[in-house]
């Protein structure tokens, strides 16, 4: 049987630069003296603090309670004393209420942390509850509460689960290393998700540029019924939810719809791993793997860090800067967010910290659009980015909407490929904001 390599239409082939970290085993970073744990690390309502300044907290203790269904609690990632509860700068660029905890270096475990029993004895609702209480939110970046994904409305019949191991963002290797080093846990997480959804088919989708991850995952899935590893072509944005579903199942998530509309649930490998830890050890989501990388970092690493660790500490641990840093990005270079300071904590959705040297980040001269059509060729959503952008820049958001601005997934392929270096994604994002604002007004 020849091995099929799956993919989607469009996309780009950026310089991956994964060799900076893809052979480096995950290193456990020493616990910092102080962690800053924002009470909002997920999509949805922020948490209410459960502790007061001066309280002693233990590792894994719940310190923020979820408000509402689309929300997850947060837990302390160290044991120690609450120093402050105040707004702190968050990777999203806003100030968000956060619990500052001084570490006592004892890592005293909270009493609640104990194994939850084996998978066979747990019901679907048990699993969802464990996942919710462990504070698990999607670890690929969007940080959508996982238990919500696992509770699709009854009219949406889910029949397939895909574990997203594409990791198509250049530079990032945290998922890659997780698959190489912890394949069993990931498979366990997938089985838990399958059971929670009462679904038989599970796929683990990996880009072919990670042969060691494919090998490890195939070994771990050998003999597991209904679970299959599929190979994806190496192309950005292969890991985009809609592109991934299209590649693996051939189904197209309808415009404005969700994966559940085509019977699919997608979870990141990091999420599957966290689910396994929550069930097997009872450990809530208090640490994650972050790739610290970029040509401007002295020793790039894959680090297992506690949630709330400051970027500054992580960079210091990696030997500081190499040359002149130009840009600091949380996430990958295509969709990550540029930060202006290192004084921000790593949160549940922080997959990478990327520091690019200043000679790679010089703003380039923007020239008028020549209608070269390269953006149309690469757009994975089949949009015409040049026209949406042009109308957006002319404040004609109604026409931008007619060109399907709202279907844009902001993957950045168009801006990446544009030979005139036009701010395509930026202006399309602006159009989306305006269109949604107008809709809210009308509603």
């Amino acid at each position, binding site marked *: 049987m020849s091995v099929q390599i799956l993919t989607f239409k469009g996309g780009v082939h950026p310089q991956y630069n994964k060799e900076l970290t893809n052979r480096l085993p995950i290193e456990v970073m020493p616990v910092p003296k102080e962690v800053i744990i924002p009470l909002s690390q997920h999509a949805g309502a922020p948490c209410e603090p459960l502790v007061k300044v001066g309280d002693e907290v233990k590792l894994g203790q719940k310190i923020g309670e979820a408000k509402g269904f689309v929300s997850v609690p947060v837990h302390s990632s160290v044991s120690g004393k609450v120093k402050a509860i105040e707004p702190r700068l968050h990777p999203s660029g806003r100030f968000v209420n956060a619990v500052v905890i001084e570490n006592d270096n004892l890592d005293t475990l909270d009493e609640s942390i104990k194994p939850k029993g084996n998978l066979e004895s747990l019901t679907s609702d048990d699993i969802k509850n464990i996942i919710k209480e462990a504070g698990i939110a999607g670890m690929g970046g969007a940080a959508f509460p996982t238990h919500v994904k696992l509770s699709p409305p009854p009219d949406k019949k889910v029949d397939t689960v895909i574990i997203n191991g594409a990791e198509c963002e250049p530079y990032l290797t945290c998922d890659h290393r997780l698959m190489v080093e912890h394949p069993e846990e990931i498979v366990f997480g997938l089985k838990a998700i399958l059971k929670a959804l009462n679904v038989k088919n599970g796929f683990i989708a990996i880009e072919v540029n990670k042969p060691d991850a494919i090998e490890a995952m195939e070994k771990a899935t050998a003999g597991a019924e209904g679970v299959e590893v599929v190979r994806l072509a190496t192309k950005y944005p292969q890991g985009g939810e809609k592109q991934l579903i299209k590649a693996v199942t051939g189904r*197209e998530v309808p415009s404005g719809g969700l994966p559940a509309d085509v019977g699919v649930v997608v979870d990141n490998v990091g999420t599957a791993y966290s689910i396994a830890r929550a069930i097997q050890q009872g450990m809530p989501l208090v640490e994650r793997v972050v790739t610290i990388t970029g040509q401007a970092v002295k020793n790039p690493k894959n680090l297992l860090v506690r949630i709330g660790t400051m970027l500054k500490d992580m960079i210091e641990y990696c030997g500081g800067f190499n040359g002149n840093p130009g840009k600091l990005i949380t996430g990958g270079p295509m969709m990550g967010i540029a930060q202006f300071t290192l004084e921000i904590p790593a949160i549940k959705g922080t997959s990478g910290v990327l520091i690019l040297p200043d000679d790679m980040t010089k703003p380039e001269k923007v020239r008028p659009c020549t*209608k070269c059509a390269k953006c149309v060729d690469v757009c994975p959503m089949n949009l015409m980015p040049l026209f949406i952008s042009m109308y957006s820049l002319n404040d004609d958001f109604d026409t931008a909407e007619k060109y399907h601005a709202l279907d844009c997934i902001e993957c950045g392929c168009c*801006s990446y490929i*544009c030979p005139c*270096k036009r701010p395509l994604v930026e202006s399309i994002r602006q159009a989306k904001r305006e269109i949604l604002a107008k809709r809210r007004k009308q509603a």
Partner: protein
Amino acid sequence: MDNQFLVTSSPHFRSEFKIERIMLDVVIALIPALIAGTIFFGMRALLLTIISVAAAVLTEYVIEVLLHKEITIDDFSAVVTGMLVAFNVPPTVSWWIPAVGSFFAIAIVKMCFGGIGNNFVNPALAARAFLLASWPVQMTTWAVPGAVDGVSSATPLAILKGTEVAGAQLPNLWTMFVGNIGGTIGETSALALLIGAAYLLYRKVINLRIPLSFIITVGVMTWIFGPNGMFTGPFLYHILGGGLILGAFFMATDYPTSPVTPLGQVIMGIGCGLLTSVIRLWGGYPEGVSYSILLMNMVTPLIDRYTMPRVFGTREVKKVA
């Protein structure tokens, strides 16, 4: 650790593609044809090209200075326009013809509408149409390759059309492929043009959708509607004998004036092919490539409008069993 980090919107990573590099690639791709033109028509061909390029660049520069606009001659697009204008005139014309053509191309066709990317017809071809309408005699006096200036010859297409004096012989196909025939400076050598086109394809500056559909359509049409009945046409002469190769690879693919959608590009090519064939077979001119491209330029916005690709996820949702 108090570094200044640049904060911009994602993506933070840009490809190596640059418009000035793309335009430079086009210039590079046109050089084989320029060499061929110079070999067959003498130094005069090179001289006319230099005049044309100089006029194009100078016009763009002066207009941008006068309008207090950003100077954009460093993007090489004026150089490309200048070269293409020269490629579209016969090697026998007076020196000022390509200069006036380049001026028209840049000043009227390009700068009046806001400069690069905003012209809606191909500047070089509009200039050719302008020159042909204004000085028809100069623009249709062909030189015998390698001969002294002013000796008139005929293009293979004119011979096919029967507009030239009797007795003119069609050259053999190999001669036509190499380009040792009458024609404009840059259009005669299919060989040289194809080398350039291969380079552009390799550099991903153009794709094959427009050129291939254009050339195939002309081939099929001229084969079907032959002079001696259906399916007898000398289609290879039609493909090699005029400006088809130059037009299909270098001018119909011009970015601002051709459709951006994949289907639209194929429609553009077929449309150009049909119009070229109609003008060559039944129209008033032996050559129709430039007019056909100009006419398709006109409808390019409409083609884009009606060939919008199906947006991901907008087809009927497949019901899950």
